[in-house]
């Protein structure tokens, strides 16, 4: 237990000491919120879809979790590059514990970022429909951040350098984000997009967040939760598997 705690503690110390990271990673979601929320809001409303800001916020929260979690994976690359990973990997502690301690740090950071974005959104006029469902929304955020942090850790364990990670970012993370239901409703989208978005697990994450905050759903909460649970297991297994193979 104390080993996991010290790994988590180090991640938090690092996070709190690099202010640029705190603001850097919420800057992007806030920009999306402003530019899209206000920029497209009027069009959205004219099309009879209601208040776009309300619709968008769950998507932006997912974006925060996705980018925070995956970028946290870069930490592993940094640790590899600057040698600190060796210090952790040769410790007399099972690798699963090493990964868990680190991933819990990443998860905590993601959750803090998501809460900050939520507060900013609230200031912009976002209002949840039902306060009673917010604890469930929070729980979903916790599970999603653990999933996406594991995903980031697994990816980072696979690539050798920052260029490799950049490629993953461009060819995997951005498509995953844009081909989800984060930014637009899935009603009346072209068939191709509909298929792509509905095989994307992120869409179900957004959908669950949307249900628990503004009570709109495309797939239904039951289906959402099943997909989220499966994604969690798959991502954790992926991360453990990849992390176990790291050679330094």
């Amino acid at each position, binding site marked *: 237990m104390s080993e996991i705690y010290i790994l988590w503690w180090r991640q938090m110390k*690092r996070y709190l000491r690099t202010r640029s990271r705190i603001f850097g990673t919420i800057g992007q979601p806030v920009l999306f919120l402003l530019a899209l929320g206000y920029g497209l809001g009027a069009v959205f409303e004219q099309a009879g879809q209601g208040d776009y800001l309300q619709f968008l916020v769950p998507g932006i929260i997912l974006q925060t979790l996705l980018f925070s979690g995956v970028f946290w994976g870069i930490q592993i690359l940094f640790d590899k590059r600057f040698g600190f990973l060796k*210090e952790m990997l040769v410790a007399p502690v099972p690798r699963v514990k090493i990964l868990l301690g680190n991933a819990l740090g990443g998860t905590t950071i993601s959750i803090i970022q998501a809460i900050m974005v939520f507060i900013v959104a609230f200031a912009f006029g976002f209002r949840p429909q039902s306060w009673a469902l917010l604890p469930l929304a929070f729980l979903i955020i916790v599970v999603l951040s653990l999933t996406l942090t594991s995903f980031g850790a697994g990816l980072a364990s696979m690539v050798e350098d920052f260029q490799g990670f950049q490629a993953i970012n461009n060819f995997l993370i951005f498509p995953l984000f844009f081909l989800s239901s984060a930014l637009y409703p899935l009603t009346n989208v072209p068939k191709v997009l509909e298929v792509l978005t509905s095989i994307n697990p992120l869409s179900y994450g957004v959908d669950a967040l949307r249900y628990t905050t503004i009570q709109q759903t495309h797939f239904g909460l039951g289906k959402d939760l099943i997909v989220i649970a499966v994604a969690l297991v798959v991502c954790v297994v992926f991360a453990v598997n990849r992390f176990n193979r790291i050679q330094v």
Partner: protein
Amino acid sequence: MTSKYAVEVRGVVKTFGSIKAVDNLSFAIKPGEIFAFLGPNGAGKSTTIKMLTTMLRPTSGQLLLNGHDVTKDQASARKSFGIVFQDPALEEELTAYENMLFHAVLYGVPKKEQPKRIEELMQLVDLWERRDSLVRTYSGGMRRRLEIARGLLHHPKILFLDEPTLGLDTQTRNILWDYVKKLSQNEGMTIFFTTHYLDEAEQVAQRIAIIDYGKIVAEGTTEQLTKQTKTKTLEQAYLKLTGEGIRDELSEDFNGLNVRSVMRTGGQR
């Protein structure tokens, strides 16, 4: 399989692509022994240490630490050793004290002993006054000293020191070797170190192996090595065995590993 040795390496081969970094290497170190590995750049010293400390997997062969197979039973093997790395491995965003604490917890130093031992070692390398500074603000020499102190924090059965004195001043070198000798005597700790300073090997090690092209070319005490090569000093013996050519090693960027490439220059005079 059990082994009466603290460290045992049996027919180990490690290749990176077409390059053979370690070539059918075998040796054994007795418990409590201080053993030095000498060899030119890229001879396979660090690769061997990396395999022994579970950082790399061998292509073939067997490595045992305290009787535990390093490849098959990594967890038990990791409980047996400590290491001072050749390359920096500190967390820059933590203070020196926090780096020590992190290590103490992760490497299982009993909680009660943590503050005492951390202070003792930081005093030893003269960093106690600067304990609350971020490592980011440390100079190269201070970082090296901190790494040494950290490596000695928990008392493993086997201690690996991969070129520990590289870039250290004479004072710290002396302090380090005195401390290491004490650990070996008082706690029966097995010490395995690599170095480029032959005087260190001569003064500290009870037994020396000279490795070149991934193979051990000679092994024994200084007297045995000089006798065997019909030379007067360890340095002469070393040069006679490994030649006078200058070696290159590929940078860490190549697969993250040190692999030798050879540049024959002086050797053909």
